[in-house]
């Protein structure tokens, strides 16, 4: 595709429900990142993949958050037992993988936990 595609665009979950957010990176992009953006704030790093390897997951807020990229392409961010504080926009970005190359962001998934 032309850019990073994220689905769904909007998700409303009841507190305690599990959710799965999908990211389709730009074809051929080796690196993939997930960020969380609270309303009126800058994005906060969650996790980083190089191909299928998860190189850094230091930003995941709790063990309820889990990300995977099993075949080195599509990635899924899963949040178990959602809480109200999980409400945010979840952004995915991808890049060619070389240091300092541009990271292209998707439009994000807006998660609202009620």
């Amino acid at each position, binding site marked *: 595709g032309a850019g*990073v595609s994220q689905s769904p665009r909007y998700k409303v979950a009841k507190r305690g429900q599990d959710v799965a957010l999908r990211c389709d990176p730009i074809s051929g992009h080796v*690196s993939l*990142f997930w*960020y969380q953006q609270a309303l*009126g*704030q*800058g*994005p*906060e*790093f969650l996790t*980083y993949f*190089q191909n299928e390897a998860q*190189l*850094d997951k*230091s*930003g995941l807020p709790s063990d309820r958050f889990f990300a995977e990229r099993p075949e080195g392409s599509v990635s899924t961010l899963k949040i178990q037992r959602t809480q109200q504080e999980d409400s945010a926009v979840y*952004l995915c*970005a991808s*890049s060619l993988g070389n*240091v*300092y190359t*541009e*990271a*292209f*962001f*998707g*439009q*994000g998934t807006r998660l609202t936990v009620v």
Partner: protein
Amino acid sequence: QQQVKQSPQSLIVQKGGIPIINCAYENTAFDYFPWYQQFPGKGPALLIAIRPDVSEKKEGRFTISFNKSAKQFSLHIMDSQPGDSATYFCAASTGTTDSWGKLQFGAGTQVVVTP
């Protein structure tokens, strides 16, 4: 704690004015400093980026100034237009293979350019 501090939170300028956004950092290991532009409902888009080996970089109407000793960098938008109205984020990261993509973002500056 926020590793990149950004100011101001918001600013309003008239068309043709020069909005200036400032960022400061503490981690001397940072060596990649991008600026992103974000419109409502969209993801951030890279505007311009700088490495510490240069003090200034220009791309079109956007200029980054970098002061390594002060650990500060700023974005200037020359001849600003109403279409530049957006939220701007500075960011920083280290240039190692396993960490360069871990961008530390500032809190953002909402810029409004009036006609």
